[in-house]
């Protein structure tokens, strides 16, 4: 079974919520990214989401945009990210890894993604493909890799059904109308919409975008299968980019984990 699928179903069986943490590969450098991935796991992260840097990340707010820019200054490519994952897997074969990025970088590396084996990445989330399409539409059909689709507050009922049927990893519910790192969560709308998604699918539905505090995490965990945190971690990574002292991030993640437990 796919590592992501089994991790999420084990959590569910134990009545636990998933904590997904995001970082951008190569920000501030690849060695730090590897260290941070291990720190994530030690601090309680269930799934690691790696942002694949792209020159034109239209769904990202300023914090993650700047992280993409910094990574691109280091010439980070998808090829290097897959090598990073191989390195990580030498000491961790349990934690699922999701790549999140933009279609153009994935279709520029189709053969590499196709060649990925069982102990590599587990899932891909392409931000800019319509949810009714999946990776196979673009020539990527690797049994080790499943598709994560986004559903947003503006997704119509008939699209919710289409997308839910088409997703194989989990449903990523976008909490708000906006880019990553925005604020103002509308809790009752999120609750309603996640409820609507659950009418159509048994896939885990995780909530992401705009989650900053342990309080946010606690509230959203009540009616979702887990939460995704990105911008606040990326901001902390940037603040520690010269000292490389990432302890604060470990503490932040532990607090989040407690909040959703």
């Amino acid at each position, binding site marked *: 079974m796919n590592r992501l699928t089994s991790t999420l179903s084990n959590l569910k069986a134990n009545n636990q919520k998933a904590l997904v943490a995001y970082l951008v590969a190569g920000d501030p450098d690849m060695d730090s990214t590897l260290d941070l991935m291990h720190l994530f796991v030690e601090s309680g992260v269930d799934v690691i989401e790696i942002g694949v840097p792209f020159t034109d990340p239209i769904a990202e707010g300023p914090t993650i945009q700047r992280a993409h820019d910094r990574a*691109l200054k280091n010439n980070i490519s998808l090829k290097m990210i897959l090598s990073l994952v191989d390195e990580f897997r030498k000491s961790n074969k349990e934690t699922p890894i999701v790549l999140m990025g933009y279609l*153009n970088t994935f279709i520029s*590396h189709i053969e590499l993604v196709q060649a990925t084996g069982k102990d590599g990445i587990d899932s891909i989330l392409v931000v*800019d493909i319509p949810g009714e399409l999946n990776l196979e539409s673009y020539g990527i059909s690797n049994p080790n890799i499943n598709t994560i689709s986004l559903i947003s507050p503006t997704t119509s009922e008939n699209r919710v059904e289409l997308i839910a049927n088409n997703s194989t990893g989990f449903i990523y519910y976008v909490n708000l109308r906006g880019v990553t790192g925005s604020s103002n969560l509308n809790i009752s709308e999120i609750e309603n919409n996640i409820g609507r998604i659950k009418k159509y699918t048994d896939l885990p539905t995780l909530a992401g975008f705009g989650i900053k505090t342990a309080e946010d995490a606690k509230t959203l965990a009540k009616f979702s299968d887990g939460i995704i945190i990105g911008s606040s971690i990326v901001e902390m990574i940037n603040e520690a980019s010269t000292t490389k002292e990432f302890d604060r991030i470990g503490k932040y993640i532990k607090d989040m984990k407690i909040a959703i437990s």
Partner: protein
Amino acid sequence: MTSNKFNYPDKEGFFGEFGGKFVPETLMYALEELENTYSKLKDDKDFIKEFYSDLSAFVGRPSPLYFAQRLTDKYKSGNIWLKREDLNHTGAHKINNTVGQILLAKHMGKKRIIAETGAGQHGVATATVAARLGLECHIYMGSEDVRRQSLNVYRIKLLGAQVHAVDSGSATLKDALNEAMRDWVSNIDDTYYIIGSVTGPHPYPMIVRDFNSVVGQEVIKQSNDLFNKMPDAIVACVGGGSNAMGIFYPFIEVQETRLIGVEAGGKGVSTGEHAAPLNDGTPGVLHGARSYLMQDEAGQVKDTKSVSAGLDYPGVGPEHSWLKDIGRAEYVAVSDDDALKAFHEVTELEGIMPALETAHAFAYLEPLMKELDSSSNVVINVSGRGDKDINTVAEIDGIEF
């Protein structure tokens, strides 16, 4: 004259293998809403009447097809005609599609208008139509373009719109587009995004083309009236490609007319420092559509280089990519130096100062006229006037005010 055979985009928004809707899920609803509105209104008699009446009374259409006597005398190998989009209200072809799009926004009840701009012409055109309807308007512009197009920035502000300088990436048109899309995702319920070219996700390439094809429709009629046949060639500059698409589209089935798009060759296509994806790019996905794109092997979008802010874009409208691949249109490139030379030459010979974008089309006359005989008729789409570029040209010529 409209085509039965050439019928693109398809239902999914594709021109062959180009186009589509590659956007974050949040935007799908807005694209569907726009598509539904447009498909209802495009054949609606009252809507068409309103659009053409605005084009006539507010824009000043039809624009003349003008015989360029001294340019014709210079080349002595065919008659050169100028489609005078520079005479439109606000000084460029951009107003044609913004007049149409603001009517769609009005019918959709949108209260807030956003747009991206490169040279500033689309920003001016958008701020103009928004002012006319009293709608809040925000224009995104790369900070590099804000600098080189300061006159247009001030015009946009005078029209009551807010200009947001964009510092990310290369600080030019593509980054302005990224930022406009982020604004749209964040304000999707009350905001209409007036995309400025035949780029972006479906249905934009179709809508902008349809509104701007009034240019080509007029040329068909004017050619019949003025020289009693169809032109042998039509030449237009291509950045995103809306001025070219507007004049090409009604001619796609007119096989005797060569359609020639001129891209920005920057320092020369062979140097890699240019903005000519149809000449030196590969298919990729940017800003919601699959099209030819300037990108590296890792799929990252390359920075572009052009003296003309309006052509300084790494992508191109998907329909142009399709016309290139099926061989219906030719796409060439002209360097900054040749475009600047043409800018001066046309200004001196014809008393018409073309935009630097348009100057690229004029520069291609040099090689083109050698292939033609004296009975031929060539139409240059004068996409805009050059007043906005005076600072740029003066700087290059070493003149300080």
